[in-house]
């Protein structure tokens, strides 16, 4: 049973560029959440997707957007990258009727230069 997978593992972008990160949830899960973990900090909630719609959103600007596909996989898009967007981006999946656990992927390390 595959866990949560994310791609790519590492990414280097230049300020002003756009980036797309991808996540495949754990088998049987239907909800995907994205978190940003800056160096030395705890993860910060970006948004959550269920049934291909954004259910909740954290305190992040509109430059951060997402999508969920019919197979429950998800993408995180960040436009107009800033140096401050450099972080580990974590995807977590869960089952809407499940036991309240979220399973995290290994993350994508984004470096903006």
């Amino acid at each position: 049973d595959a866990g949560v997978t994310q791609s790519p593992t590492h990414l280097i972008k230049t300020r002003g560029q756009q980036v797309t990160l991808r996540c495949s949830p754990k088998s049987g899960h239907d909800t995907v959440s994205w978190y940003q973990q800056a160096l030395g900090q705890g993860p910060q909630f970006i948004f959550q997707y269920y049934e291909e719609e954004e259910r909740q959103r954290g305190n992040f600007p509109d430059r951060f957007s997402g999508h969920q596909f019919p197979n429950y996989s998800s993408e995180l898009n960040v436009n107009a990258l800033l140096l401050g967007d450099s972080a580990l981006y974590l995807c977590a999946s869960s089952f809407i009727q499940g036991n309240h656990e979220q399973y995290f992927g290994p993350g994508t390390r984004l470096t903006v230069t």
Partner: protein
Amino acid sequence: AQSVAQPEDQVNVAEGNPLTVKCTYSVSGNPYLFWYVQYPNRGLQFLLKYITGDNLVKGSYGFEAEFNKSQTSFHLKKPSALVSDSALYFCAVSALGGYNKLIFGAGTRLAVHP
């Protein structure tokens, strides 16, 4: 507003000794509480959760945590530390259930010395 505090940036303990990593929370309504562990360059691994029921929760790798409603705390404990327990530990809270957003503390680095 929901919040989590982990008052110690780092906890040092000798191998074989008991360990405690502290966590306090603030949330409206009944809290759902979680502990996760993060190893270098890795994602978060689930350790244990409190949803309801017994205040002492047992989790993975011999860890346990005690929910104390009056002190709004959820401290992580282990009777005998291993060097391999050295990692970054995060406490998290969710007000409406785990499928809602998790609010994390800043993390506590646990260093277990041989």
